[in-house]
């Protein structure tokens, strides 16, 4: 342990701590001004903003590249430091364009923040004297580059070197001609390219997808969990006026660190896709006709009755609570056998060894915990051909498999889903469900970690919280689970998973919780 004094405050930190982190601790969580320092990247020390005054040293030192020493006396806000930071900042700003009104970074820009803290001087550089560089250069499928705005902190190049190992970006030229760019013929097209946008402290790298869509200060953030694959990256849903504009990673060192893949970032588009179901549809004269919720509910309750239902099919894309309720409903309706947790052939794609998992369903682990077996399409087709009555499908798109569609063609299909899939087209009653960003739900990632996603936006049209629909169904067949709200529901789930504390799921820690008892349960699917 090292004892040191920062700004007159004595703190004790472990040996080997960076002075930058020690300063943050001493300053009550407030970072030193910085551009290049990033805890998950190597130290570059190029921005020279985090300079501090250490007593006994003749010159100012950058805190990010200094390891604490016992007895250090550090000043971070002395006049000398402030003057130095201001001058360095002025250097950074010499060629920086006054683009803030049209810059997407405005509002979450390091340069703006630093300027408000240390700048506020009258610029001595004429606008016409600034070195002009390339603006709005498309360098990849997701990223657009503005070289003028770059402060050459080299975060992005380090990211491409150290995290993805692809090394597309580099710094070319020298002096005030130096600029970030890709080599000729190279594109920044790895699956993690948008992370460079996240870590870029200024508006040099911006997202093509989010470009000009919304000013960031208008966005509201909700923490949630990415549903793109079984990894379950922690995300921040940025939304406004009932519309999601982007997903950003939320740091969780147990799961995704500070990163997130580009594929996962684009999953929000499914929420606002054109073919979202928002009304109850009923097949009349061969066509799916929209009807009111009240009528649709009667239709649904009328179809789902013990004896009337021949088979129940769930999907690992549903939340943990829903799977628990679906399983319970299926047991009451059809007994133990004629049900499946999903089609085990679905939801697999290529993964990589960083974050993207080959298993593209967010909740397959939960199926395994619940002994809610998935079955291959052929086996299911065989079982379905033996069943009769109503085929109840919760989510997914099982009837995209021709064999299953053929087998189900004799049955009355009741589909509760989110999009107009092949299953919806084949169904007789279609009930809209809400998607992950539209509900408060629990997800079990491939590590067996239960994570909570909160509701960011409202579901479209008549769609509503899915567990309420399921509870309604259970009540209508006379098996009231007696859950009036989310806390009771979470207690029900905890009881089903035989967790030690029934309220554990109501007090889930920020980073989620992996129940040790269930850690060794086999992963579902292949």
């Amino acid at each position, binding site marked *: 342990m090292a004892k040191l004094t920062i700004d007159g405050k004595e703190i004790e930190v472990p040996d080997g701590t960076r002075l930058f982190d020690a300063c943050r601790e001493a300053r009550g969580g407030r970072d030193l001004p910085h551009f290049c320092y990033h805890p998950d990247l190597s130290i570059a020390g190029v921005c020279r903003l985090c300079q501090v005054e250490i007593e006994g040293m003749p010159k100012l030192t950058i805190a990010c590249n200094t390891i604490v020493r016992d007895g250090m006396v550090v000043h971070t806000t002395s006049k000398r430091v402030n003057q130095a930071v201001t001058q360095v900042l002025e250097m950074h700003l010499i060629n920086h364009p006054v683009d*803030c*009104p049209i810059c997407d970074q*405005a509002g979450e820009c390091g340069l703006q923040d630093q300027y408000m803290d240390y700048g506020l001087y009258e610029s001595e550089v004429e606008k016409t004297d600034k070195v002009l560089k390339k603006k*709005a250069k498309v360098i990849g499928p997701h990223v657009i580059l503005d070289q003028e705005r770059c402060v050459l902190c080299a975060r992005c190049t380090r990211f491409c070197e150290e995290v993805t190992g692809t090394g597309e970006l580099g710094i070319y030229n020298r002096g005030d001609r130096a600029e970030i760019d890709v080599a000729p013929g190279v594109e920044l097209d790895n699956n993690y390219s948008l992370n460079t946008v996240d870590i870029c402290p200024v508006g040099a790298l911006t997202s093509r997808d989010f470009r*000009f869509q919304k*000013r960031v200060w208008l966005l509201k953030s909700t923490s949630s969990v990415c549903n793109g694959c079984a990894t379950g990256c922690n995300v921040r849903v940025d939304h406004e006026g009932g519309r999601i504009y982007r997903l950003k990673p939320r740091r969780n060192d147990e799961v995704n660190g500070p990163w997130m893949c580009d594929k996962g970032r684009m999953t929000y588009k499914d929420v606002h896709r054109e073919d979202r179901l928002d009304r109850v549809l009923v097949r009349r004269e061969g066509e799916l006709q929209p009807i009111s919720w009240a009528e649709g509910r009667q239709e649904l309750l009328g179809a789902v009755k013990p004896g009337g239902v021949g088979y129940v099919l769930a999907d690992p894309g549903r939340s943990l609570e829903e799977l628990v309720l679906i399983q319970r409903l299926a047991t009451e309706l059809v007994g133990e056998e004629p049900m499946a947790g999903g089609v085990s052939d679905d939801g697999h794609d290529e993964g990589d060894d960083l974050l993207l998992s080959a298993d593209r369903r967010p909740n397959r682990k939960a199926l395994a915990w619940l002994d809610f077996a998935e079955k291959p399409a052929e086996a299911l087709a065989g079982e379905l051909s033996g069943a009769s009555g109503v085929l109840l499908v919760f989510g997914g798109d099982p009837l995209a498999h021709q064999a299953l569609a053929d087998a189900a063609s004799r049955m009355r299909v009741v589909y509760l889903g989110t999009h107009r899939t092949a299953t919806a087209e084949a169904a007789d009653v279609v009930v809209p469900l809400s998607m992950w960003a539209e509900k408060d739900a629990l997800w079990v990632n491939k590590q067996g970690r239960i994570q909570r996603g909160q509701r960011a936006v409202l579901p479209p049209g008549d769609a509503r919280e899915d567990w309420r629909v399921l509870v309604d169904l259970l009540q209508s067949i006379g098996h009231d689970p007696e859950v009036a709200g989310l806390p009771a529901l979470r207690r029900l789930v905890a009881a089903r998973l035989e967790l030690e504390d029934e309220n554990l799921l109501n007090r889930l820690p920020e980073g989620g919780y992996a129940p040790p008892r269930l850690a060794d349960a086999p992963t579902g699917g292949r």
Partner: protein
Amino acid sequence: MSYKGLPDVVTTRRRNLLESAYFTEIARGLAVTGRHLIRNLFNTDKMPTVQYPDQKRDYGPRFRGRHRLTQREDGSPRCVACMMCSTVCPADCIEIIAGEHPDPTIEKYSKEFNIDLLRCVYCGLCEEACPCDAIRMDTGIYEIAAETREAFVVNKDFLLNNDKDGTL
């Protein structure tokens, strides 16, 4: 603390018998109102009332009237869709949809720029917030009329080509 030498506690005088009998006081009140009546009866022209549609008051150059969008020298709108005005607007009456301009030197521009004149409170904060001097309220138009609520939502074309007429 006393304000400008005024006493903190205002003491009220008890009414004397004549005053609390009301009738003399009412008569005095009648005299006051009657004086106004007679004076105005014989000086109808000196009344401060402005006969509005026939006469109009002159407003100062800083009067905030209906908005307009200014243009660059080449006639293109100055607005760069930075949303400062819509952010600062207390009535939330400005809706801007930004887009990529075909001209690379302009980069960002407002594809749509709608102002709901019914919601606008004419506070002028949008003028102050605008970094490009793109929105101004110097048209001096304050008579704004339309047949439907929808017509009060004016678009970019309207705001750029502001004629001096209140009808929408």
